[in-house]
């Protein structure tokens, strides 16, 4: 068997030459050189002759009669699965565009989350009733005085808090935090309009706040500092907070006005004001992600 394979291996270049020669694909010079070889090599000439016979015989193979007619039934144009794919393709195109747009929205929303643009926009997520917990200019002045009163225990090296402080406590302080001192006059009309729903800011009396601040654990302090850092752009007295070891209610500034307000029963915080409430951009990102996957799969199946 091995000796029979030898012609295929040894004459591989000749095979291409023979094929090109028979098909008239050689240049004039190549053809002349090859014909000189043919005259000198009877074995090569025999190969060429047999190959020519092969090609001639193959081209004379009779065409096979058709076993049947291959025309399609005219009803095929009414069959959706057999219809030319124009309509499906256009629908698939729209689905893909929708998927691409949803993906873009998802990327933008995640970009907002990653870049940190979310921090300034977190403040508006609070309900207007809390966001506009503002005090009059006179109250603002009082609040500055209250700040000093509240921070005094902390500055005096109060003992570490017990840690039993409710989790809502920092949020209460944040909700009590109205606009900064500079913003207070602008926010006052809104506050006057929505004064009735705001029962919470007055919930924490000054003494209670100071005591709880004094009881705050170091961990709680660090958490509060982190929260303050995030709210720094909207807080008017940021530099004070950095310097103060006291808890957040005393650091936010105008928010501590509430310490001077009379006691009122504490009310639970609205859900939107909870610290772990999902930001809007994450909701948008989630919806966009689901849409992108859903539309992409639909578009892929339609194509």
């Amino acid at each position, binding site marked *: 068997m091995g000796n029979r394979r030898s012609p295929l291996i040894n004459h591989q270049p000749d*095979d291409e030459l*023979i094929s090109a020669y028979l098909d008239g694909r050689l240049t004039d010079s190549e053809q002349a050189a090859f014909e000189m070889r043919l005259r000198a090599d009877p074995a090569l000439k025999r190969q060429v002759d047999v190959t020519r*016979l092969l*090609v001639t015989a193959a*081209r004379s193979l009779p065409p096979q009669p058709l076993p049947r007619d291959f*025309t399609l039934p005219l009803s095929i144009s009414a069959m959706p699965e057999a219809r*030319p794919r124009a309509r499906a393709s256009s629908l698939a195109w729209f689905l893909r565009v929708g998927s691409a747009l949803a993906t873009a929205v998802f990327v933008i929303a995640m970009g907002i989350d990653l870049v940190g643009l979310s921090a300034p926009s977190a403040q508006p997520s609070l309900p207007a009733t809390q966001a506009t917990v503002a005090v009059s200019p006179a109250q603002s002045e009082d609040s500055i005085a209250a700040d000093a009163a509240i921070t005094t225990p902390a500055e005096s090296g109060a003992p570490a808090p017990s840690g039993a402080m409710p989790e809502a406590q920092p949020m209460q302080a944040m909700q009590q935090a109205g606009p900064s001192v500079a913003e207070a006059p602008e926010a006052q009309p809104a506050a006057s309009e929505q004064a009735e729903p705001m029962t919470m800011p007055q919930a924490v009396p000054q003494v209670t706040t100071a005591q709880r601040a004094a009881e705050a654990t170091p961990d709680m302090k660090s958490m509060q500092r982190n929260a303050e850092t995030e709210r720094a752009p909207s807080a008017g007295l940021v530099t004070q907070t950095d310097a103060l070891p006291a808890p957040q209610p005393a650091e936010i500034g105008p928010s501590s006005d509430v310490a001077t307000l009379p006691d009122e029963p504490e009310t639970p915080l609205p859900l939107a004001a909870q610290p772990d409430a999902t930001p809007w951009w994450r909701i948008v990102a989630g919806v966009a992600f689901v849409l992108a996957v859903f539309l992409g799969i639909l578009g892929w199946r339609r194509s």
Partner: protein
Amino acid sequence: MDEAALIKAAQRGDAHAFNALVLSYQSQVYNVAYRIMGDAASASDVTQEAFLSAYKAIRSFRGGSFKSWILRTVTNACFDALRYRKRRPATSLDGLGADDDSQEGDFEAFLASSEESPADAAERAELRDAIARAALALPPDQRATFVLSDVQGMTYEEIADIMQTSLGTVKSRLSRARAKLRDYLLRQPELLPDEFRQ
């Protein structure tokens, strides 16, 4: 209606126009399928499948030679059917592989089996039938190239367009296919005319 108008009408979903194209090419399409597949039943199935696929995909036809496009469709359908057949060991053409290395052994095995009864082969088959039969033992890509070139008489350029490959690949596949068939004929001198016998 000329071919271009028929194609445009078919692209709009006109089944009449597409059937006019089918009538023009069905004989050539079926014969290509028959020479590649080797039997009428498989060729018929592949031809029908190719025309149905062509109807569904006719909007993707962007001009050029419709003949090349429809022959490309049927050639691909043949390759798909041969691959499917290879996964079924019980079929008659079991052992035909897609790659050349595995096909070399198949072709040699075919030659050996043919040599076992040269007299019977000479009696029952003429030269053309022997060539057609031997071609079925070629690798599918070489077989399709041989059928398109030497049976259908198409040029290298047309074959390259149909098989979506380069001109050099077409030349190489064709020369290898011819060499294998030629060696087969040289080992079967009784199949050759007297002047070719030594």
